[in-house]
């Protein structure tokens, strides 16, 4: 899929180059866009769709990870860097030392859903409770600690499902739910969001977390409250984009200085309803509420 998209972009590039050449000296601009693998599918969809909007501008998209994109921005080799995390202070300083001025644009949100087995009677869970379940030194080990009894889960011991320790999802969940703390030992560390979802689906005792885009109808998505007993928010594209859902991470694009000209036009289009509908089609939440019909 990824490769095919890349091919399409390449073909689109060539076709538009040809058109530009035939058009008689019309200038063709290329936007270099690089970074996050989380965002790469969306970025390619944007690049493809933008061809119909402005055929004189070609967007060249590549992945490689947030760090790769940010490094390229620091070195001044890209126009737009994609990142699923904010730039670190050290990176901003490096960029400024090199005479670049990174400007952050939020282009969407990725909501992390807390997944439960469909038979689990629990509906609401708070960030504090999640920290007691996932955190080092946490006190919740059984479902009865949360005041529920899960049918089909024999001694009510939770099966806590997490991710391998160098995943971006793992790092974001740790930062948001555990703050400065660490995960406890003994969690089952899956290698991929799909594996987490599969395990929780087949295990009544299980609890796990992963991107909302991986939800299936055989899973229950917990309603998350900031404090125990407080009002909770269901994970959805809408609650992620209005900021009410507490564990949604913003997805960024960085430009060098306030974008102007064709780069500015492209970013404005991404933030427009058309652009935002494309990101929500890909399973992420748009940065602004949109009505895509």
């Amino acid at each position: 899929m990824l490769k095919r998209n890349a091919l399409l972009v390449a073909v689109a590039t060539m076709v538009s180059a040809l058109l530009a050449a035939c058009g008689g000296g019309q200038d063709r601009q290329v936007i270099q866009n690089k970074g996050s693998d989380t965002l790469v599918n969306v970025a390619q969809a944007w690049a493809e769709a933008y061809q119909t909007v402005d055929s004189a501008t070609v967007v060249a998209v590549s992945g490689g990870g947030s760090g790769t994109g940010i490094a390229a921005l620091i070195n001044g080799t890209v126009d737009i860097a994609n990142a699923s995390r904010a730039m670190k202070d050290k990176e901003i300083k490096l960029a400024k030392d090199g005479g670049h001025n990174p400007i952050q644009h939020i282009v969407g949100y990725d909501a992390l859903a807390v997944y439960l087995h469909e038979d689990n009677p629990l509906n609401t869970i708070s960030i504090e409770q999640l920290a007691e379940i996932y955190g080092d030194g946490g006190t919740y080990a059984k479902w009865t600690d949360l005041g529920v009894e899960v049918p089909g889960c024999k001694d009510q011991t939770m099966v806590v499902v997490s991710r391998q320790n160098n995943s971006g999802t793992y790092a974001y969940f740790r930062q948001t739910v555990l703050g400065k703390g660490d995960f406890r030992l003994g969690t089952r560390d899956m290698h991929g969001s799909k594996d987490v979802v599969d395990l929780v689906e087949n295990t009544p005792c299980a609890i796990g977390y992963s991107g909302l885009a991986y939800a299936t109808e055989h899973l229950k998505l917990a309603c998350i409250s900031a404090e125990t007993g407080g009002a909770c928010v269901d994970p959805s594209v809408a609650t992620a984009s209005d900021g009410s859902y507490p564990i949604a991470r913003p997805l960024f694009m960085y430009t060098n200085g306030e974008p102007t000209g064709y780069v500015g036009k492209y970013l404005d289009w991404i933030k427009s309803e058309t652009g935002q509908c494309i990101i929500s089609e890909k399973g992420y939440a748009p940065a602004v509420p949109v009505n895509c019909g």
Partner: protein
Amino acid sequence: MKKQTLAATKVSDFDRLNRDWYIDKTVQALVFIGGISAIIFIIGIFVFITKEGFGFLVGDFSFKEFFFSPNWRPTSENRATYGILALVAGTASVTGLAMLVAIPFSLGTAIFIAEFATGKTREFLKITVELLAAIPSVVWGFIGLAIMNPLIIDIFDVPVGLNVLNAGIILGLMAAPIMTSIAEDALKAVPDRYREAAEAMGATRWQVIYKVVLPAAKNGLLGAVLLGVGRGFGETMAVLMATGHAINIPTSVFDSVRALTATIAAELGETAVGSPHYQALFTIGNSLFIITFIINLIADLVVRGVRKG
């Protein structure tokens, strides 16, 4: 032409520097290089792994933490800890259970092949055992994941079937073929006159095996078991898929664990080259290398012991 040369060659001319002499020397050299290449590779690999892990050994490494702490948190924001105790316990528990599974199987098969089976049955069994050794480990892992997992959940009524029991059984079946082959060799090495003598004394077949053949083959059988242990320590893919991959010192066979090898396989791909985490993974690799080396060395010495005796 050739005939002529041969005819002209006298016994005293064998040392002459003709074409045959050069071919002979070249082949000798090639065979020698082939012979010592294993040693060169072993040393090369050892040097490479040690070099990659060296920065960790002189930096964040603490002997006490590394070997006696269960806290494996290489990406912690607070304080990264590199304790492999739980991982060692995981590997050891799975290998231990695997041996409990594999020893009766492989010993039984070896005794049957060496002492009872004859003719076609024997050949067929030997080939089948060798075929079993050729099943790729990822296929075994898949069996653990797709067949054993629901089976264990059903039979034992536990929440998750990816645990020590699952991986132990899978690993036991994987180690059994090689153990069978070595054990069979050991049994075949017992001279027939031992058996004949025992039979002449009026021993039954079982008495011959139990009282004469097994004690005589004891070292070879121990060597077979140790090789199986070495196989268990080094196995990665099947263990990664069947253990549940949870850092945990197991208290029952239904606990999920994580193996040393599986940790390297799961984490190395996405680790920044040269970071302490990367180097710590190489240090784990080094420890594994040394452990399997020692086990294989002991196995070899033990097997050698029986051949001399």
